């Protein structure tokens, strides 16, 4: 076969359901969930790839792939429509031996060994579609090469509480990993895996095959591949990353990561011309801010029409906020309409929803007596909240009310 060799190929795990995002991932995979006014979560790893000079990305899809497939298309918005390489969606497939789903993160890569080998890479970078961050993967690759590592794991220092939900490792002063524990009950360190791995491909391939042939093992990087390599004495190093990195796997963290964009003290800058974030842009006229609008501390994009009050909020494309409506501390996803007199506070409203006049979604924390009762209110996609209806804090709405 005529091949064009690529030094490093990216494999992006995008098949996850994201069950902790509930109503928002009912019809779409987690990486397709809207973020930051005109992006979807997957724009971050994809843009990072392009900005890092990685032009071959396999996107592993499985759960509800329609929106994601449509969004990625031929990869053109990220400059990933290439004669050789580019973006490829890789769903599970049938073989002569039968068909099976991706049984885990490692199995998903295992099933696509043939895809990777088309490009005969030295290295493979494994990414996930769950995080918001800007990172130069090329620097990490240089680190991997300089250390002569077999595997490099990007790490960040987290709190002890967060450590119980993440892959935690111990590294010596040469950044060599000595211990790794997936979601430990009693973490020995606060160095957490960011879910970004670079492997020397020949090594990874070997461990993927061994893992596949062992019926007693989980088919997962954190549970099997990483510990197996560590136990076998492969050289594994931790790559410390200092910048902004947020998991958006829960409704609260998704809301917080959006609000981070409005906080000038938090270092996630979408306006940096040297590290552009790309996305599939909607074809809509510019936003219109009406004569009665009061708008501050917010991000708003094309196709929006705002005539009400918007504060500390993010409006995605084509959102309408009518005169007399109030949206504060909230995220309104594409195409939704907030009608006159409706109040949306501390809430996430999904795509193409209609919040009728006088409806109320969410509440400010200071108005709730018992703080345990307070949380972000969430309305799923394509839902109508009828006039004067109330959605309480912490409520998750997945049907019209």
């Amino acid at each position: 076969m005529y091949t064009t060799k690529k030094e490093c190929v990216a494999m992006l795990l995008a098949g996850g359901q994201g069950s902790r995002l509930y109503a928002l991932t009912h019809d779409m995979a987690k990486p397709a969930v809207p973020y930051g006014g005109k992006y979807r979560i997957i724009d971050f790893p994809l843009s990072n790839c392009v900005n890092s000079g990685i032009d071959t990305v396999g996107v592993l899809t499985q759960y509800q792939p329609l929106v994601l497939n449509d969004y990625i298309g031929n990869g053109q918005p990220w400059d990933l429509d290439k004669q050789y390489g580019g973006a490829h969606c890789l769903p599970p497939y049938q073989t002569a031996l039968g068909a099976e789903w991706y049984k885990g993160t490692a199995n998903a890569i295992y099933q696509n060994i043939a895809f990777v080998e088309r490009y005969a890479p030295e290295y493979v970078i494994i990414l996930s579609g769950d995080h918001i961050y800007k990172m130069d993967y090329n620097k990490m690759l240089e680190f991997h090469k300089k250390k002569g590592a077999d595997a490099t794991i990007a790490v960040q220092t987290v709190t002890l509480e967060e450590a119980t939900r993440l892959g935690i490792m111990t590294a010596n002063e040469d950044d060599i990993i000595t211990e790794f524990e997936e979601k430990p009950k009693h973490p020995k360190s606060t160095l957490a895996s960011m879910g970004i791995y670079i492997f020397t491909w020949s090594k990874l391939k070997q461990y993927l095959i061994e893992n596949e042939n062992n019926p007693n093992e989980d088919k997962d990087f954190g549970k099997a591949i990483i510990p197996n390599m560590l136990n076998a004495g492969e050289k594994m190093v931790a790559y410390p990353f200092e910048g902004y990195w947020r998991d958006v796997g829960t409704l609260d963290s998704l809301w917080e990561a959006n609000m981070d964009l409005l906080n000038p003290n938090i270092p996630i800058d979408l306006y940096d011309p040297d590290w552009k974030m790309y996305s599939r842009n909607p074809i809509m006229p510019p936003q219109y801010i009406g004569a009665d609008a009061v708008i501050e501390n917010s991000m708003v994009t094309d196709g929006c029409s705002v005539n009400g009050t918007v504060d500390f909020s993010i409006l995605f494309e084509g959102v309408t906020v009518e005169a007399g409506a109030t949206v504060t501390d909230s995220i309104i996803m594409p195409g939704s309409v907030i009608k006159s007199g409706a109040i949306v506070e501390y809430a996430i409203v999904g795509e193409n929803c209609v919040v009728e006049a006088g409806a109320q979604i969410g509440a400010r924390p200071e108005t709730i007596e018992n703080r345990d009762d307070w949380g972000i209110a969430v309305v799923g996609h394509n839902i109508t909240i009828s006039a004067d209806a109330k959605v309480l804090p912490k409520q998750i709405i997945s049907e019209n009310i």
Partner: protein
Amino acid sequence: MSSNRSVLGLIFSNMHDSTIPDLTKERTMGSVLFGGRYRLIDFPLSNMVNSGIDEVGVITKSNYQSLLDHLGSGREWDLARKIGGLHLLPPFSHVQSGMYRGRLEALYGVWNFIKTSNADYVVLSDCDAVTSIDFSKVVDYHIENGADITAVYAKDVITSEQAQNATVFSINDDDRVVDVLLNPHISGACNISLNMFVLSKEFLKNIVLEAASKSLYSFEQAILQGRTHEYKIMAYRHDGFFCKITSMETFYKANMSLLNSDNRSKLFPENRPVYTKVRDNPPTKFGIGASVKNSLIGDGCIIEGTVENCVLFRGVKVGKGAAVKNSILMQDTAIGAKCDINNVITDKNVKISDMRMLTGSQNYPLFLGKGAVI
């Protein structure tokens, strides 16, 4: 559009450059910025695409670097095609082409391109009219009436100044053009030509080749005026929102007319999107202390001051405590803190330092050229 007839679109990007010399100093009429994120050519081009025309030639003359940059391969208009698609037609691209003086000469210059098209009909459009129009209906009308030429017009009340750059039709009861006035000294209610025409390719061939042999170059003078009674020239009335850009004043008013929601919904109907080049700007950010009223705003702006009755293009910055009113700020304009800006048009990349005060008048807005630093 029905598949049993094919239509070629031809856009004249440089016609009317001289009407707004400030804005066309470094660009064509077609690449003049408009409406917060567009260039004028986006309107005829999107109209053609939305009317099912998938083969478009863009005729340029001079100053066309910004136009080429904007159009690229035509992908954003779905015109990066194997069959048909976008064709850029600069002067001197064929033996007989050069610095044309008028539409007929320009068409003769690109005749080799037109000749190879399989189209039966040709839609000609300039870039000076901003509107949403379905050309397939104009072609239907042309065929139904057995016309030689169909000219699109709109009813409008114009000032004598606007008439200076207008073609005005007299139309009889059968909607036939009976008289054509070029840049007349009149005012009031008129049938204004929108400079959009439909002809069969065969008819176009006859008049272009004949004109070339007689050294005639002006379509308006030699054909519309000169042959009014010889040819069947039908008038197609286009209703709905439109703006004709004939001067700096009309350019300003046309942009401001988009602050009216009724006009916007007519220019940007949901099923007829206006395509333009994607710039990958982040959303617009409204800072603490921002106050924005009645304004049209492109993506990627950072607004920390007051903005009222304005059109802001992509990537504009308005500093803290600044007040910008009744103004058009084009792409990447930066207004410093505590500035006071009123009735001003800034071209691309204008930088205004802190505490400056600039005021134009309503019928003569102050214009700051591309890259000006104040």
